[in-house]
């Protein structure tokens, strides 16, 4: 299993360049918003957490749809499916590798973008923390879509639509927890704990669903 993790990490550095494209895209999204909002620093810092979260959501989905497609095209998927390791575990490890390659860099880059958006330290910290907890859920949800995409000849986009609705709750609680950390009346913990729960929930449901889809895509 560590072998799979290492291979996938190696591939994402060597071929796809997932990390860098994700971060670049993330920065582009964040850089464009001030154009819309104008140079009103207060407003910027108000919508900051939301924008950072949206940027992260969109970049986390980039490339996720080909998580299993590449494996299928060169025949590796067949071998992965035949093993005695529970397939769920294999999927989990692949998700982990994808998150390490694509999600984690976003989390690490987020403070920088927080600064761009004129957010204060607490807000930046909270956003980073919620991203750290929330982005894995996005990967797990996306994995289901990616597994379904395997059955389709080239279903990348179709899959994103099917999957994005499920990502909405993650976004809602991530953003509201970030806001709660800054605005006094609202407590930080409840939405944050819900976010944690969502991630745990999808950490189970995502690989299960993906494994089910892979088993049934058979051709």
């Amino acid at each position, binding site marked *: *299993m*560590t*072998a*799979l993790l*290492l*291979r996938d990490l*190696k*591939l994402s550095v*060597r*071929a796809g360049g997932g990390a860098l494209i994700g971060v670049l895209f993330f920065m582009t999204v964040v850089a464009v918003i001030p154009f819309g909002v104008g140079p009103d620093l207060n407003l910027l810092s108000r919508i900051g957490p939301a924008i950072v979260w949206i940027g992260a959501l969109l970049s986390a989905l980039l490339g996720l749809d080909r998580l299993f497609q590449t494996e299928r*095209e*060169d*025949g*590796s998927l*067949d*071998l992965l*499916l*035949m*093993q*005695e390791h529970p397939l769920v575990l294999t999927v989990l490890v692949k998700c982990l590798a994808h998150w390490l390659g694509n999600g984690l860099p976003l989390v690490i880059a987020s403070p920088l973008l927080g600064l761009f958006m004129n957010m204060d330290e607490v807000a930046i910290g909270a956003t980073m923390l919620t991203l750290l907890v929330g982005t894995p859920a996005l990967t797990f949800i996306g994995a289901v879509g990616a597994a379904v995409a395997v059955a389709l000849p080239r279903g990348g986009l179709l899959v994103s639509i099917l999957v994005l609705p499920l990502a909405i709750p993650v976004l809602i609680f991530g953003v509201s927890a970030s806001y709660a950390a800054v605005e006094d009346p609202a407590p930080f913990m409840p939405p944050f704990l819900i976010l944690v729960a969502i991630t745990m929930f999808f950490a189970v449901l995502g690989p299960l669903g993906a494994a089910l889809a892979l088993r049934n895509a*058979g*051709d």
Partner: protein
Amino acid sequence: MIKILMKVSSMRLLAENLSARRGEDLIFTDISFDLGAGESLVLTGRNGSGKSTLLRVVAGLLHAETGRVSWISESSESGMRAAEACHYLGHRNAMKAELTVFENLGFWKDFLGDAEDGKGISPGEAAESVGLGGIIHLPFGYLSAGQQRRMAFAKLLVAYRPVWILDEPTAALDVSAEAVFTELIKAHLAAGGILLAATHQPLGLENARELRMAGFAGVTEERW
């Protein structure tokens, strides 16, 4: 000696009444076979007659419409899926073009692990056995078609599995490589392995059983 024979012969790959569908067409019906240690079955037949389909069913990659495949061995619990005792070499090579041959073979060795009562050899030795020891550091994508096929075959050697399921293993190979493959397969059989292969060219195995596929066995229209 007798003990070894006993142990060996207790291993069986059993297929009962298999039939499979592609789209709505039944490709074959009622195929059964029973392979013991050291035995081999070669599938032949015209293009599109369902050889690859049968191999994928046995490997557990396609759902059989009816029938089942089972794997019986002394050491395995009864619930073991047949697929876990098998190596599958399909039309595609299951290697990453971006990684070197060494990385590819090393990955499969670690990931697949060895089945009980057998041990895989190291990537270097495996490449050596297929006659390509020198180019193990090249990215897989740089190899010629035949070299790629050989390295895909080397994958069978790095992790031990009693059953080899090979789909046209000798496509794109030159004559000397074909001879090498035949030797490797014979060695595997002699060590008590099982072979299930689809091929258009004779593999040069003595006493291999042959199964001729006929293709298209009807439409599953009764379902509707």
